């Protein structure tokens, strides 16, 4: 199974680094969001009641880190749907002795790609003057949180892609993630939101992930335990979702 996973992952990672059109969109969006939001909206930190020690760059970096972690899975989902449309997935199904390795491979590839992307965005964030108040342990926690969400996103998208097996899967996997990450305190802390967005963000689990990530960057621990209590069970649930998706794909003959 590990051999299958590594083979599947290697293929996607190889593609990502040899075909720029394959890697760029997944990198450009977090970059655009970070530069666009952190660059344009710095003065928002001056809004009365806005209190966040490390500054607006770090405030937005937390968002971009989680946004890109979740969305990276969608890009893998596109690849999976594409593989099924072109019949390549059938070849994988035939060749793989333990087919769950295929899912693991797609997840590994997602993690590898995200790791590269977020490193690049991090370097750019430091260049434009982001300051971090958290220590090494906080940063490690932030990375683990990011990777776990990354796995959740990949498993969710894989499950959808293997059920629909066509490009139609794109919007189906993208839209819920998109809504979850944007119907949250993206630009200002939760208590500065008003009206319907405040009501929605309050019940949105992604709000807690954002709060945890921002807290870790600031050297705090608030919401961190809650965030992990959300993403770890989600990873398990979506693992089942992805594996049953694989069974459906198998039943349909690829």
């Amino acid at each position, binding site marked *: 199974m590990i051999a299958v996973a590594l083979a599947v992952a290697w293929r996607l990672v190889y593609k990502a680094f040899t075909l720029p059109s394959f890697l760029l969109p997944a990198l450009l969006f977090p970059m655009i969001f970070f530069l666009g939001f952190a*660059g344009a909206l710095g003065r928002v930190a001056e809004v009365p009641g806005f209190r966040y020690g490390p500054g607006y760059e770090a405030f937005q970096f937390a968002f971009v880190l989680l946004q890109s972690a979740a969305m990276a899975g969608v890009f893998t989902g596109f690849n999976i749907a594409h593989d099924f449309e072109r019949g390549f997935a059938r070849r994988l199904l035939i060749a793989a002795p333990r087919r769950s390795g295929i899912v693991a491979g797609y997840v590994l590839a997602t993690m590898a790609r995200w790791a590269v992307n977020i490193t690049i965005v991090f370097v750019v964030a430091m260049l434009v003057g982001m300051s971090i108040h958290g220590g090494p342990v906080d940063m490690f926690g932030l990375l683990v949180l990011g990777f776990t969400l990354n796995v959740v996103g990949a498993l969710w998208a894989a499950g959808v892609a293997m059920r629909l097996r066509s490009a139609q899967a794109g919007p189906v996997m993208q839209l819920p993630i998109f809504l979850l990450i944007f119907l949250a305190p993206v630009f200002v802390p939760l208590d500065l*939101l008003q009206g319907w967005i405040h009501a929605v963000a309050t019940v949105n689990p992604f709000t807690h992930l954002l709060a945890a990530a921002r807290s870790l960057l600031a050297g705090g621990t608030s919401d961190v335990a809650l965030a992990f209590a959300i993403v770890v069970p989600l990873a398990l649930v979506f693992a089942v979702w992805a594996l049953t998706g694989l069974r459906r794909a198998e039943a349909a003959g690829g």
Partner: protein
Amino acid sequence: MSVAAQIGHLGSRAFLRSLRQPGALFFSLGFPLVFLAVVASGLDRASDLPGFPDDSFLDFMMVVPFVHGSLFTAINSAVELGRDIETGFLNRLALTPARGIALMLGNLAGAVALALVQFSIYFAGAAVAGAEFEAGLLGVPVLFALAAMIAVAFGAVGMAIALRTGSSDGVQGMFPLFFVTLFLSSMNMPRDLVEADWFRWVATVNPVSYLIEGLRSLAISGWDPQALALGFGFAVTVIAASVTVATLAFRDRLTRT
């Protein structure tokens, strides 16, 4: 048959084809409205910042969907042109007596027609959400005209890319770059309220800022001759440049005698 009639026929084909792809249509209608809702409500408190030009962030943002819609429609139209080149459909059209200019502008005309329909929906959406439009009723056609010119400008850039690369993937690969020009502009914040020097500089040299500010002036200050002159001026300049590039690309692509 006149060139205008040929453009009409090719434009209606492009329009019809777009209507028959509800997925793409849904995205170019839905995303701008969702973005407006999320940003306008999420950044509502930013209108409290000293020097912010309006007391409502929704008013400030209400023209942004017009720019997004223009961009998406233009990209979709360029993707379709790339597909026409891939499938040989463009060659089929080239074998008819249709004039070259009609072949070039037909696609664009369909895109603009679709964009105008979308603009009406964005405007209605913003109005329902409670946005105020300072320029009043007379300002609406001006808003639509400038936004349509933006669609033509983006459309011609997309067309040039489609003609150069000859593929729909080529256009789709460029899509994020279009997005960069939007996000690194004064789309989300007035330029004089941007703190980061590098961003203010980029937004100031980015023509998209002036296109948005021209549209925005109608919503938040009514009739601002300077903002409108800059908006229309940049629109005309970008159109002139992009249509020239597209025409050259068209000549290279279509070598018919």
